């Protein structure tokens, strides 16, 4: 069956010492429970989930500590029972060691579980249902990248080929090897779930030819489960386990540079992931532990262990009896792509497949970085057919455009180039830094673009508001002028209107009218002068105000009927009062007294008449007096006019 699969090849690649026998000779052990576990909230690529627990809460093994939030994410679960003692930043299991939000659980040692419920008849469930269970179990790719498995599954449509990756090309690491040897049936059962969820047409389990026991075990398990799958044995060459390289090995096709395997109808899952899927679906267990290779010559008891997710690395290294040197390298992952950590309290996370503690002589530190001699060896081993020596020059010169042109983004950071470099140049490190710089530049550029848009929008808004303000001022000024002009016009029209009234009411007021007209005309002149000169001419305004006041007065004096003129009414009232007084003074004569009394008593009409006459006389007198006053005021206004002009 296996011989039917054609094995292609990929360019480049290296053959570093495998050193797998250090750890793959013994069965996978279980460790003692650690005192505490550190469960980072985010252990996968993507958004972090929302917290479900608080410090002080008691949790059971398998209990979800987070749930997917608004922006997705995967849950994490308590690997054992105990009490949440802290939710805070803790050194991360990342090359940078930058602290991340971590739930610290003090274990009670009882290892009590919640009740796990298996999915009933999983193979009859719809793919969506299965994917939902896989998401709830918190399963992320266990090969190293920790991409959420459910997301990968749901993004893949029309899967032609499902590849189960058991290649494990990285030296030292034997986690998948041991898993396949010990749990082949469970892996195959997980594969059936994947097949069911993906409706995959073809399934290949790829294993490197340096793992004969694993190949044997997987073949037997597939045969006894009688599923549609084949085992492909690929030649041992690093990095044949890389997703892109394995696809090329098995299909001869290349994943497009900007695409994903799913674009080609291919989906790849690690054997560990298949095992976790089996556990989640058939046993209802979320992802709480994983197999970790403890290896390197600095460990007295190397081997593989089942480690609870969150177990501090120090706990595992203690169990493997680390004989640390003064400058110990502790590598998470293998020697080609792993990263060193600087704090042994970092936890085991979903992607931690190996902890490597080499001695100084085993993996000596690279020597002095020498000049590139352009030997081209890096170019020959590059599995992505890049030009590492050119990338190195451009990375050193921070020439990001040239780096993009030379396809830096297609570099998978496998380390083959740096492995063979005779000048011992840490090429991958240069590429990582350059990639980070390019990424940062992009982020900064995007941020700058947003800032520019916001700045320009704000400038436009400020400009708009300024224009609006100016517009308002202009309108107000226009309105004022219009009002003024209207008033002036009204004032012009007034005399005719009122003179008719006047002629009807009082005929002998020509003098006052003339005076008023003169005053008005002067006021108008003043107003015109004002509008002609600058708006903010205070003097003009003062003069105008004075003139206006005078014109008003004149108008008031001229027409006693002016409705809204208080002063006029007051003056009238005063005039009336005077007239009354005058009338009273007249009637104060004895004759008048008599007449008054008589009028009061007998001849009301006559008295009334007299009183009215007297009142009229008084009014006239009052008017005269008023006119007198008016004359004075006109002269004042004239003086004001001459001042303003």
């Amino acid at each position, binding site marked *: 069956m296996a011989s039917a699969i054609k094995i292609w090849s990929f360019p480049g690649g290296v053959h*570093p*010492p495998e050193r797998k026998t250090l750890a793959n000779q013994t069965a996978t052990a279980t460790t003692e429970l650690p005192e505490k576990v550190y469960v980072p909230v985010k252990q996968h690529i993507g958004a972090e989930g929302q917290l479900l627990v608080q410090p002080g809460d008691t949790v059971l093994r398998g209990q979800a500590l987070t749930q997917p939030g608004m922006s997705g994410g995967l849950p994490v679960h308590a690997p054992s029972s105990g009490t949440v003692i802290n939710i805070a930043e803790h050194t991360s299991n990342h*090359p940078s060691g930058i602290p991340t939000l971590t739930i610290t659980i003090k274990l009670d040692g009882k290892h009590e579980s919640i009740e796990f419920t298996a999915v009933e008849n999983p193979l009859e469930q719809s793919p969506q249902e299965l994917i939902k269970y896989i998401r709830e179990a918190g399963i992320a790719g266990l090969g190293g990248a920790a991409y959420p498995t459910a997301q990968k599954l749901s993004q893949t449509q029309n899967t032609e080929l499902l590849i189960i990756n058991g290649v494990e090309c990285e030296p030292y690491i034997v986690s998948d090897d041991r898993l396949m040897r010990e749990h082949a049936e469970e892996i195959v059962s997980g594969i059936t779930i994947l097949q069911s969820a993906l409706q995959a047409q073809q399934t290949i389990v790829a294993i490197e030819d340096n793992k004969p026991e694993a190949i044997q075990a997987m073949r037997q398990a597939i045969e006894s489960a009688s599923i549609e799958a084949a085992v492909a044995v690929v030649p041992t060459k690093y990095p044949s386990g890389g997703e*892109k390289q394995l696809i090329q090995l098995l299909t001869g096709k*290349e*994943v*497009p*540079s900007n695409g994903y395997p799913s674009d080609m109808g291919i989906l790849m899952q690690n054997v560990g992931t298949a095992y976790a899927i089996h556990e989640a679906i058939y046993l209802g267990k979320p992802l709480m532990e994983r197999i970790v290779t403890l290896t390197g010559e600095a460990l007295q008891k190397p081997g593989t262990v089942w480690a609870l997710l969150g177990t501090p690395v120090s706990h595992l290294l203690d169990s493997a009896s680390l004989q*640390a*040197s*003064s*400058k*110990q*390298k*502790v*590598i998470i992952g293998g*020697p*080609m*792509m*792993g*990263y*060193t*950590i*600087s*704090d042994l309290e970092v936890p085991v996370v979903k992607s931690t497949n190996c902890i490597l503690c*080499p001695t100084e002589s085993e*993996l000596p*530190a*690279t*020597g*002095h970085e*020498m*000049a*590139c*001699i*352009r*030997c*081209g060896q890096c*170019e*020959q081993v*590059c*599995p*992505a*057919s*890049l*030009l590492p*020596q050119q990338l190195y020059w451009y990375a050193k010169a921070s020439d990001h455009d040239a780096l993009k042109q030379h*396809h830096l983004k*297609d570099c998978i*950071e496998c380390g*083959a180039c*740096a*492995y*063979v*470099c*005779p*000048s*011992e140049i*840490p090429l*991958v490190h240069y590429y990582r830094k350059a990639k980070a710089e390019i990424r940062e530049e992009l982020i900064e550029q995007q941020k700058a673009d947003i800032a520019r848009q916001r700045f320009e929008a704000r400038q436009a808004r400020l400009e708009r508001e300024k224009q609006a303000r100016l517009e308002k001022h202009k309108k107000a000024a226009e309105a004022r002028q219009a009002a003024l002009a209207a008033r002036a016009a009204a004032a012009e029209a007034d005399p005719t209107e009122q003179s008719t009234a006047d002629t009807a009411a009082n005929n002998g007021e020509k003098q006052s009218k003339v005076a008023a007209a003169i005053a008005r005309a002067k006021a108008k002149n003043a107003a015109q002068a004002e509008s002609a000169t600058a708006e903010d001419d205070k003097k003009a305004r003062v003069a105008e105000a004075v003139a206006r006041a005078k014109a008003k007065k004149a108008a008031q004096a001229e027409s006693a009927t002016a409705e809204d003129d208080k002063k006029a009414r007051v003056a009238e009232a005063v005039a009336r009062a005077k007239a009354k007084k005058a009338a009273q003074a007249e009637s104060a004569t004895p004759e008048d007294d008599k007449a008054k009394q008589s009028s009061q008593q007998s001849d009301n009409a006559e008295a009334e008449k007299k009183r009215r006459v007297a009142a009229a006389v008084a009014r006239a007198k009052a008017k005269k007096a008023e006119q007198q006053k008016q004359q004075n005021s006109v002269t004042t206004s004239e003086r004001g006019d001459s001042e303003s002009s």
Partner: protein
Amino acid sequence: MSFFIASSPHNHVRRNTQWVMQQVLLAMVPGVLAQVWIFGWGVLIQLAFAIVTAIVAESLFLAFRDKPIKPALRDNTAILTAALLAVSIPPLAPWWVIFIGVIFSIVVVKQVFGGVGQNIFNPAMAGYVLLLVSFPVQMTQWMPPAHLATFNLSFIDSLWLFFTQYTTDGFSVMQVTMVQLGQGIDAVSMATPLDHIRNQLSQGYTLSESLNSPIFGGLAGLGWQEVNMAYFLGGAYLVARRVITWHIPVALLGTLLVASGLGTTFAIDQLPGVNIHLLSGATMLGAFFIATDPVSAATSNKGKVIYAALIGVLVYVIRTWGGYPDAMAFAVLLANLCVPTIDYFSKPRPYGNVKAKESAE
């Protein structure tokens, strides 16, 4: 306890530049021994003097450039350059010839361009060409092979010749050579086999007539064929140890073989044959030790084949129609000039970047 922080990969193939250059020097040993056996102590004296000059010159210039001296010297590249130049020049050439050549190679061709890795020309060959065009007399006075010599020059005499141009008994290089050759052979025969053939052919002799000279015998020129075979052995060792890849030697020798084969086929008795071309002059030294200089050669395998084939063609063309009997140095330098272009056009296609044309197929 503290932790060692490093970026991956953490393991490394234990073959650094220093080791590579050591291996190349080691592989030169058979060739050098053959040369000593055939041309006398002068070869070793040239070699020692050249290496000392190279180390001193490189140290001084690095000090002048304010660069660390130790790591640059440790990579053995200066020693290799000096060695390649030393075995290329006549063993009894005066000391100042190799001195000028080494200084030029190290300072002008290598350091002025920025040090190891930055030079566009092969330093040894650039130095050789400078000497050849500047001191044609000294650079063409090759000793006759020991087979033909009537007596062997002692080490002391060689040393004296090297520094003073006269032996302890007061003979000059020319006189020594004449005496060695015995009577009846003129100074022309000081020429190398390639030189000799060239002269004879240009004087209207046929190839077989020119091959009648006592300097020929066996497969090609006496002495020279042994030297070439010894260098071939060393080169085979380098290929076997994967210090160099097979591409450059095979492409170079293959092209030369095809070209000279065609030449003898179409111009019988007028052009030297395959045996002469492959086993004369600097053919083997050039194919395995000079053209394979990583710095000035093309990088990709495809590029290396093109580069080496170009050298092969140029060697044949210059030997046949050019102004010089041997052409390895000129051919290598000319090919060095083409390397950027070759590299540009022999770029591999990166993974996943299938061209539209290819993907349409």
